[in-house]
């Protein structure tokens, strides 16, 4: 197929083209992909990119790939993918359109390729124009001795009214607390209760309410009564633990009774 393409080219032109293709191949690493290669090839057509013959370009590219194969050069996969696509495009462009076939026409594909090439070329031109501008640090200069802005750090303290009041409350209530000291005369300790009960337990042959063991003077004043009840109860438990008495309560809140254990 490639040979066919070369038939209608004059011998000298063919040689020139082959030489050009070879020199390109030597340089294949220098190309930034198939589109870049196509753009370079398109320059040999010496026409405006808008008027480029995509068919000729496809032929040139395929010739290039053939040449690379002949020279046993390894081409990257995307070059081969492009070659396959261009071969397809070429056939689409050469053959009359098949009405049964879907998809874009050869002309559409060719137009898009031309657009891509034109766009890439435009971007290259832009890049060149950009780099040729007056550039900072080369043509235009900024201040050589910039004066740094001194950072003056100021600390601003803040407090809310709540902080203030809580602070004040803290100080004023601090005085209100003194170490907690029990008012001893209202207290009947467990030790006292235990001593008292040890002396009396021998007489408890029958179930007796433990409240009957409260000492005199601790039965009326609620605070004293509460203290004596608690200590007497605790002392009773202690005696149960010692195995001296049994203790029972028929139901919740019913009187707690004890009797001597024989």
């Amino acid at each position, binding site marked *: 197929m490639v040979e066919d393409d070369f038939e209608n080219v004059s011998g000298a032109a063919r040689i020139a083209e082959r030489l050009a293709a070879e020199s390109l191949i030597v340089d294949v690493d220098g190309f*930034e*992909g*198939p*589109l*870049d290669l*196509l753009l370079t090839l398109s320059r040999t057509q010496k026409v405006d990119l808008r008027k480029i013959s995509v068919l000729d370009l496809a032929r040139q590219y395929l010739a290039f790939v053939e040449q690379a194969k002949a020279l046993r050069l390894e081409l990257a996969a*995307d070059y081969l*993918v*492009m070659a396959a*696509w261009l071969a*397809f495009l070429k056939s689409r462009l050469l053959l009359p359109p098949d009405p049964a076939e879907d*998809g*874009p026409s050869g002309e*559409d*594909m060719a137009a*898009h*390729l031309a*657009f*891509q090439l*034109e*766009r*890439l070329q*435009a*971007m*290259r*031109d*832009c*890049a060149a*124009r*950009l*780099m040729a*501008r*007056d*550039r*900072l*640090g*080369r*043509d*235009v*200069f*900024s*201040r*050589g001795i*910039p*004066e740094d*802005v001194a950072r003056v750090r100021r600390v601003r303290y803040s407090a809310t009214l709540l902080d203030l009041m809580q602070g004040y409350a803290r100080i004023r209530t601090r005085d209100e607390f003194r170490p907690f000291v029990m008012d001893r005369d209202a207290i009947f300790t467990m030790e006292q209760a235990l001593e008292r009960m040890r002396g009396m337990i021998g007489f408890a042959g029958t179930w007796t309410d433990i409240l009957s063991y409260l000492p005199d003077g601790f039965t009326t004043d609620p605070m004293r009564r509460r203290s004596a009840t608690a200590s007497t109860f605790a002392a009773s438990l202690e005696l149960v633990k010692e195995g001296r008495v049994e203790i029972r309560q028929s139901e919740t809140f019913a009187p707690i009774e004890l009797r001597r254990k024989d």
Partner: protein
Amino acid sequence: MPQDSEKKEQSLFRAPPIFEQERMLEAILFASAEPLTTIEMAERMPHGCDPAEAMVHLCRRYEGRGVRVVRVGDAWAIRTAPDLGYLMQRETIETRKLSRAAIETLAIIAYHQPVTRAEIEEIRGVSVSRGTVDQLLEMEWIRFGRRKMTPGRPVTFVVTQAFLDHFGLESARDLPGLKELRAAGLLENRPPPGLMPQIGEGGEDEDEAAPGQNELFED
């Protein structure tokens, strides 16, 4: 320091006269190597100052001088006049030579912003190496823009104020040849008519009809 607070107190009553504000701008801009926005300048000036108005006066004052006031995006800077660049050769800092790939990628980002990596790859016809983008990011010539509202929500790239500053552009609208390119339809994101070889890994957002440059220039 005493002067400082004195100035500030005074300013509570009235803004300094415009010629004084112009002096302030001049001092602030001279001292900075980086472009400053009027907001940044206003923050450093006494209350009630109008840097925008004073800037008009300052620009006029430096017309035709050895240095001039230039606009960089929404910021301002003092730069030497381009025609005197040859006098400053000694100040030239040897900049890292950019690769062809980097230069092209930069141009594509500038003209097509906001642009995704896949779009750059489609235009260049080759995959964009991570290193190229990293280099441009590192130079602070490009930055990430908004994500595209397309499947995969790909990140986009846009050029920065440092880019504008470096290339002496007031805004991305002033890119050379932008209008012509747009008129020629070369900034459109034209979807390929199927079956075209696709480039790179990120093929997922290639088919979108991106608003491209227009987005940037609407405002």
